[in-house]
């Protein structure tokens, strides 16, 4: 907005202001509904405690699984040339855009008791994933995985691969190169991927309720509890919402320098 430069058009400012207000007003609406005095007690209720505990356990598991499979997946997509790589990448990123409820339906027909693989899991091992905590972890991993792949693949493509070459000329085997050179050089990408995956898993709703159901203490995670309690016990729903909001703000703050730039 320098005086010597061209003027910023007023309608751009106006539209930007509307957009900004549209994003921030719901936050204000949420925060002004919080009854701060009873917040701690609301979060100590059995429903809230069960939901928070389950969410913490499931989201950490989901983030760990997303890293365990997402990092190798990103490595293959970034480093191995094969036919159909572009298609494979597009498919891996699909959960980013597919409605979570559709993902849940897909999970149901793949891993449910009558599903593609699920029927054998049930027939041979007696394993049922639907309506179980494991099902929650699967649904959350499903939506979180692309965040790991997208950030780690970008980090792998962005790093100077000549450092890896330098390491091999020094006698390092592939696994040593990966552990001692590649991983430290892409560490910011790994941290960002894990944090985003965890935040996404924590907030997952649609795939979870479709695939795993809504059983308190077993599959009712915090977002599900918020939805369910909003009418009967709104103060608990609002308290839980504030917890989720705070966690997301914290993740954004952590990633600000490393991933989103400091601008």
């Amino acid at each position, binding site marked *: 907005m320098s005086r010597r430069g061209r003027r910023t058009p007023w309608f751009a400012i106006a539209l930007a202001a509307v957009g900004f207000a549209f994003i921030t007003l719901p936050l204000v609406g949420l925060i002004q509904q919080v009854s701060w005095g009873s917040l701690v007690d609301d979060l100590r209720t059995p429903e809230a405690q069960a939901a928070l505990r389950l969410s913490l356990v499931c989201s950490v598991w989901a983030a760990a699984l997303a890293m365990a499979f997402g990092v190798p997946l990103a490595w293959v997509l970034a480093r191995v040339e094969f036919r159909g790589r572009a298609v494979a990448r597009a498919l891996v990123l699909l959960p980013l855009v597919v409605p979570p409820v559709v993902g849940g339906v897909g999970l149901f027909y793949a891993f449910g008791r009558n599903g593609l693989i699920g029927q054998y899991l049930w027939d041979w091992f007696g394993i049922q994933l639907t309506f179980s905590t494991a099902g929650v972890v699967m649904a959350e991993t499903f939506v979180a995985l692309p965040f790991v792949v997208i950030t780690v693949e970008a980090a792998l493509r962005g790093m*100077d691969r*000549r*450092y890896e*070459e*330098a*390491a*091999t*000329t*020094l*006698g*390092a*085997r592939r696994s*040593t190169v990966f552990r*001692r*050179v590649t991983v*430290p*050089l892409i*560490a910011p990408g790994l941290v960002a991927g894990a944090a985003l995956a965890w935040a996404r898993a924590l907030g997952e709703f649609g795939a979870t309720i479709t695939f795993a159901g809504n059983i308190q203490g077993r599959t009712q995670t915090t977002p599900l509890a918020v939805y369910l309690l909003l009418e009967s016990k709104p103060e608990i729903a609002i308290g839980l919402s504030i917890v989720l909001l705070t966690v997301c703000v914290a993740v954004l703050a952590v990633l600000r320098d490393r991933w989103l730039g400091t601008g």
Partner: protein
Amino acid sequence: MSLAAHVGIRLGTLALDAALTAEDGETVAILGPNGAGKTTLLRGMAGLAPIDAGEITIDGIRLDDGDEVFVPPERRPVGVVFQDYLLFPHLSVLENVAFGLRSRGTGRGAARARATAALERVGLTALGSVKPRELSGGQAQRVALARALVTEPRLLLLDEPLAALDQTTRANVRRDLRAQLGAFGGVRILVTHDPRDAAALADRLVILEAGRVVQSGTFADVSAHPRSEYVADLVGMNLLRGTARGDRVELPNGATLVAAAAGAGDVFAVVHPRSVSLHRDHPTGSPRNVLGGRVETIDATSDRVRVGIGGPVPLVAEITPASLHELGLIEGTEVWASVKATDVTIFPA
């Protein structure tokens, strides 16, 4: 032959097909323009680019034959100093130097002890705990060299080891590097596009142009008899080694050359053949250097003639065919060569 390499690699528009041999204790400079395939040749020897045809052997052990044999880089007795050095930014200087030993299975304590000794040899013991980004260009180059040599390779490859440095530090680092290379007993191959690096560091030149070796030999041979105009432009200069005193350079045989400012110590004096004028009679005038001699060689390449003059100060002069004809020069003719002091460039050896 300690190193015998015949490297054929096709890479985009480059068709590299170059042969190279070298003995222990010898430094060979690969010189050529950008895109000639110098770095690709180096990568072939390091194992970073498998060769399509040819053969690479060290001490008679085959490392790559373009077919069944391919020893991966981590199992070759080869150390590499990369352009920009590529010190691992997340490791300390000491950990960088110890990296090769750790990767090859040396225990932590022993690796640290040997890395410390290697840093001591390059005079950087005090900087062991520092991260590479805090090093100057010259220090980084020494660390890269220590890192490459600590595993005791048989072949040391250096890719433009001085290109990342500014002109003022370059001469000093070049001198250090020569001393360091002298202490390494294996084969040293140096890629550079700067003939001064080649002159100061190498025993022998291999000139690469568009993927082919166009000429090889000692610097004196190649610069005295460049086989193409490109080689003549690149290295076809008079390079005289001597000791500088004030504005004079004393050559080992006692002859002297006057320069505008010679400095002190061991130097190279460079005189471009185009700056050497030839006369049948002793000339009078401003040139401070008037040197007597006898025509020894006459090489004609298209529109220029290079006349080699033997005498206390051996020089090559580049003149036109018309001048050659006018002066009536043939081998054995006595001539006077004149060079202005301002045309004598000095750089430390």
